[in-house]
């Protein structure tokens, strides 16, 4: 639709017209602010912890383990130099050889959600599949944070209670 609208505007005399091709879905998936009735609704991005422990490719399992321990979480997310989420360490992978590069020990391919993901449905799916945390990344794969199930449940309880 937007190409038609852009051409229509030009025919109406607008001289500098742009078609934002990725659209509103992409905007919201970047975690950027919005306005409207649903703008205040709970989403993964709003409840995700942004201060989740992280390590860069090339750092060691020991680095990841120390940061996870300092945060009190059994989790450390791995990003590359462009802040793209690459994998995670938790549980036994955090206990691997502390001199090993994180990319050798991390779990690859864990699911991510976009920050615009509505929280209620996401919590139902996480509960159903016994997922206790999920990584939140933007449209380009950049790490935003991690949504922890207890945080999400508490946020929904606060809203309803």
């Amino acid at each position: 639709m937007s190409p038609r609208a852009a051409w229509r505007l030009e025919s109406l005399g607008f001289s500098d017209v742009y078609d934002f091709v990725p659209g509103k879905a992409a905007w919201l998936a970047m975690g950027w602010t919005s306005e409207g009735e649903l703008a205040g609704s709970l989403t993964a991005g709003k409840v995700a912890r942004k201060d989740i422990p992280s390590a860069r490719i090339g750092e060691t399992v020991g680095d990841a383990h120390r940061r996870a321990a300092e945060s009190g979480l059994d989790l450390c997310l791995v990003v590359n130099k462009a802040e793209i989420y690459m994998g995670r360490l938790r549980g036994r992978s955090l206990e691997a050889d502390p001199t090993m590069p994180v990319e050798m020990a991390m779990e690859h391919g864990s699911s991510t959600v976009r920050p615009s993901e509505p929280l209620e449905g996401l919590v139902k799916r996480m509960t159903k599949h016994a997922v206790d945390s999920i990584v939140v990344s933007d449209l380009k794969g950049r790490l935003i944070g991690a949504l922890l199930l207890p945080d999400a449940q508490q946020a929904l309880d606060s809203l309803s209670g």
Partner: protein
Amino acid sequence: MPNEVGIDGIQRLIHAGAQLIEILPAREYSEEHLPGAINIPLKSLTEDSVSDLDRAQPTVVYCWDYQ
């Protein structure tokens, strides 16, 4: 010929003062829209509906996704 802009360029246009038009139906606009956007559904995009806009200023239109 209209230009295309992606995620990398949209913020720059907005900061430069571009006018934003969401062309989706009013119900979808009222639920959620980009900050500062106005709503002119595609079928209402007429001479009258754009009369208050500055035709010389950068103007961005968008819908939901790659439709």
